[in-house]
């Protein structure tokens, strides 16, 4: 009796561990949330015109309005990707910040239709003087 129960528990644990491993592996593959700009350029041929997310920093001084579109350069690990974005970029979009774009390669540039602004876990006061000046 105790032996069967123990064996059942053991089987249960093994099954759970296997499931956990599968989920972890599956998530690991499915959660390639974005490719960095340099990775995307390296995988250019495999990607073809497939839709994916690309991540990089917006190059300072590269943002330009072209009709209804916005063009700018994305960079990561000193690899640069020219971008054409359809529509208005989000409010917090500005040169120098990291962004994730959704879209595909089209000719020489990356054609994006969605810009997601990334944030790091770094929080810096807009004006560090503010607190001291108001308290004075």
């Amino acid at each position, binding site marked *: 009796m105790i032996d069967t129960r123990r064996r059942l528990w053991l089987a249960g644990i093994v099954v*759970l561990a296997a499931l*956990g491993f599968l989920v972890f592996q599956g*998530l*690991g593959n499915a*959660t*390639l*949330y*974005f490719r960095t700009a340099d990775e995307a350029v390296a995988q250019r041929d495999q990607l073809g015109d497939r839709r994916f997310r690309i*991540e990089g920093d917006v190059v300072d001084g590269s943002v330009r309005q072209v009709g209804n579109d916005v063009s700018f350069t994305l960079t990561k690990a000193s690899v640069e990707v020219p971008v054409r974005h359809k529509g208005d970029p*989000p*409010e*917090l979009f500005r040169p120098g*910040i990291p962004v*994730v774009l959704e879209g595909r390669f089209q000719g020489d540039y990356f054609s994006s239709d*969605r*810009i*997601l*602004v*990334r*944030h*790091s*876990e*770094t*929080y*810096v*006061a*807009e*004006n*560090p003087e*503010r*607190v001291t000046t108001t308290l004075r």
Partner: protein
Amino acid sequence: MTISPSSASTSSRTTTILGWLTVVSLALTAVMALVISPADVNMGDSVRLLYLHVPTAWLAMYVSFGVTTLASVLYLWKRTRSRFWDLTAGASAEIGVLFLGLTLLIGAIWGRITWGVWWTWDARLTTTAVLFVLYIGYLAVRKVPASPEVQSRRAAIVAIAAFLDVPIVHFAVEWWRTLHQDATFLSDRRLLDPQIGGTMAWTLFLGVVAFTLLYCWLMAHRFRLAWLEDRLADRAMQVAIDERRAEAVQS
């Protein structure tokens, strides 16, 4: 057979004091978050949502679900098995589900403002959504009819299984690439080197303390309510048995 008003109340001197402490600390957090702490250089005023989003997540994931798990283990362990731990686990999970829902909601609003989207299927957001569903499932399992012992044991096992997702949610931002930022403090990299200004850090810390107090206060009331309900059910059962017995004697 009636419960006197004093014993039927869920409040006591301690919970009243705790309640006031909670109100004061929440008010202080609000003042710190909205007035004293500065705007962020990138996020502007929307950074103030940090002081709600992190404390609600802390309350739900680590405190509530942590207590549910611990209570479930203590229930399953024969030496400590009692109704007390089962009711504690259930009460804590209810509070956890409520605040995890708030975490998701506030996170969506914050995401819309800073990222530009309400939702995206990155690893952190997806595993958190799974966690929310798992604990709703746990609350449902608690209600599946069975004898009280079977019900409690079943619930305890499900609670422990559901908790496996908590470390996955926590480490999702380190294991996989996500749109969601990494932890401000709770990671190897940031624990001793947080990248957050002094006033911002203190506001966040105060928020976490305030919401922990809120949890204790809610928990005291919710647990006592569950305890009273449990006693009432026992008495109703006793009354029913007595009535049947009386009928049997009459006939």
